[in-house]
């Protein structure tokens, strides 16, 4: 059956986080672009080994938090100052009452930031994505246990089935397998 499916890429398994990291450095230096490593836990230093910069997730969170703050200011000030001012304890109904609005401003800033964090995490990672070609590789289920994998995609310009396979084997990859879509 598999020969009728498109080739997704070549996968290799490595014995440890350390071996995977040095393999990633080699692949990075070889100039590959469409490739990834898969690990059961985040390996510290792997971003550098893969040539990835710092995540820019903080930007949407800043936007989310600011939106939350503005929402709270609007939610508190518009009804309290214009729609239905309620005078309680003789307290003022203008800007002098703002300190009493701080707790809700704070809470909504946090709430919107948290939603922005999780939503942008999912969007930036392209999740949920229940089907992915790597799941067709049987060994790959070890990735959530103790398996360390490196997958080079066929769409990479430098991908060549024979040469890439040789490269992966040379840098210590075991069970080098062709993964189909």
């Amino acid at each position, binding site marked *: 059956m598999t020969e009728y499916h498109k080739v997704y890429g070549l996968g290799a398994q490595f014995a440890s986080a350390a071996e995977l990291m040095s393999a990633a450095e080699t692949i990075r230096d070889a100039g590959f672009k469409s490739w990834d490593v898969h690990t*059961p836990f985040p390996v510290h230093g792997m971003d550098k080994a893969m040539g990835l910069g710092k995540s820019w*997730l903080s930007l949407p969170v800043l936007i989310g938090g600011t939106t939350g703050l503005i929402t709270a200011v609007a939610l508190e000030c518009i009804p309290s100052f214009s729609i*239905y001012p309620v005078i309680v304890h003789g307290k003022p109904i203008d800007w002098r009452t703002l300190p009493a609005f701080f*707790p809700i401003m704070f*809470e909504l800033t946090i709430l919107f930031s948290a939603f922005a964090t999780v939503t942008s995490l999912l969007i930036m990672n392209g*999740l949920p994505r*229940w089907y992915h070609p790597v799941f067709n590789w049987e060994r790959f289920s070890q990735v*959530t*246990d103790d398996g360390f994998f490196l997958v080079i995609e066929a769409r990479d310009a430098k991908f060549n089935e024979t040469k890439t396979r040789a490269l992966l084997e040379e840098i210590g990859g075991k069970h080098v397998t062709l993964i189909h879509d």
Partner: protein
Amino acid sequence: MSQVLDDPASEVTLETPVDLRRIPLVANKRDLHWITEHVSRICEGPAPFWWWVCFLITSIVACIGLFCIGYQISNGVGTWGENHPAGWAWDITNFVFWIGIGHAGTLISAILFLCRQKWRTSINRAAEAMTLFAVVCAAIFPGIHVGRVWYAWFLAPVPNANGIWPNFRSPLLWDVFAVSTYFTVSVLFWYTGLVPDLGTLRDRAKSRAAKYLYGIFALGWRGSNRHWRHYELAYLILAGISTPLVLSVHSVVSFDFAASILPGWHTTIFPPYFVAGAIFGGFAMVLTILLPARYLVYPQLRDLVTVDHVDKMAKIILLTGSIVGYAYMMELFVAYYSGNKFECFTFFHARFNTDHSGWYQWAYWWMMFCNVVSPQIFWFKWARRNLIVVFIVCMFVNVGMWFERFVIIVTSLAQDFLPSSWGHYFPSWVEVWTFVGTFGIFLSLFLLFMRFLPMVAMSEVKIVTPEADPHAHGSGVGIDAHHPVEAASDSYKQSH
């Protein structure tokens, strides 16, 4: 292997005296697969007999609580013992008690994360689950004590049936925002942490239904480093925003009291005092749940939740308990120093009971013993490492923290400014069983959590194993040679 367990650099470590080496966080040098196997197995296979027995008991208790809630809703708040002047009593006591318990989970998952306390990894999942269930129990009380629950929507920031908006300057409305934000953010944080572990359960699942369900909630997680990169930052951000959040929640809860003018409530010390008390009571509850889970039913967790973990938590209980003790003393001092007759009456007569005029002094002294005296035994190392002693102290703290809220609320209300308006308070059976019922709800939810979700954050525990260090792994002796610069400068390793 021993030099692997203690870095920074193996040459240095070999000369480090044995007693200065760091104790490994995962005992007995368990490897990655061992962690996966022993944590996942708890959720796999048929439920053990003890689980059914416990679940049956807790769900019966939960049903009694739900019945009492239904009875109270259909008959009105008159079924409770609250009446003028004690218009708040067990309901708000229970609310503050439960919401306080939740704080330990967020402290472990967020504040200890920011402080790089790596030992938190094996307990944070269970503690966060406890947070969620405690907040669920807490949220019941303000919901039903409004009396006519169908008007509970008046709490929402929308104009009510008469077109009147809620008063945004009221601490009670701040509380609605604080508690609902706290619950939502805790759920998001907890679920974000769960996704990689749900992937593990998905990959191990044998039955179709389990594969399908875990698969859906795992969102197709495949451990990609391009994902981990964003994931780690997201986790850091969630920890960063949860830290001020958790401090704000109990501060806002304390404003419910502090912003009033009642002696015993009108105190500026309340926010820090409440937060310390919340963490204190929460850690006691974490240990109350984890100790039996680890020692009685899941002995395989012993290498993950070690005696050192218990020791560290006992130290936090000692610290926060002493802060609470300081706050009690400071309240008394401020009452004395203020020279205000009503303040002095509340603290020295109604609570401290210098002249036998206090009605609830037994509750005050019981609170003092449980919260201030009993944790002092944790100054001794043998006590922190003796699990029976720790468990007994935690039970005292659980009781004491409930009494703290009872003392604050009821003694202040029952004997306030004018002796002619004083009134005794006694709980009705409905109140008592509603409170008991929330324990049933809490424990039932926790048992379901233990049964269906990994109670130890596997992917996080794996990070603290020596195998996870990409520079120091035994099989990678030659690896260090590849990047000598990182081996010396990597901050992750330095903090190990």
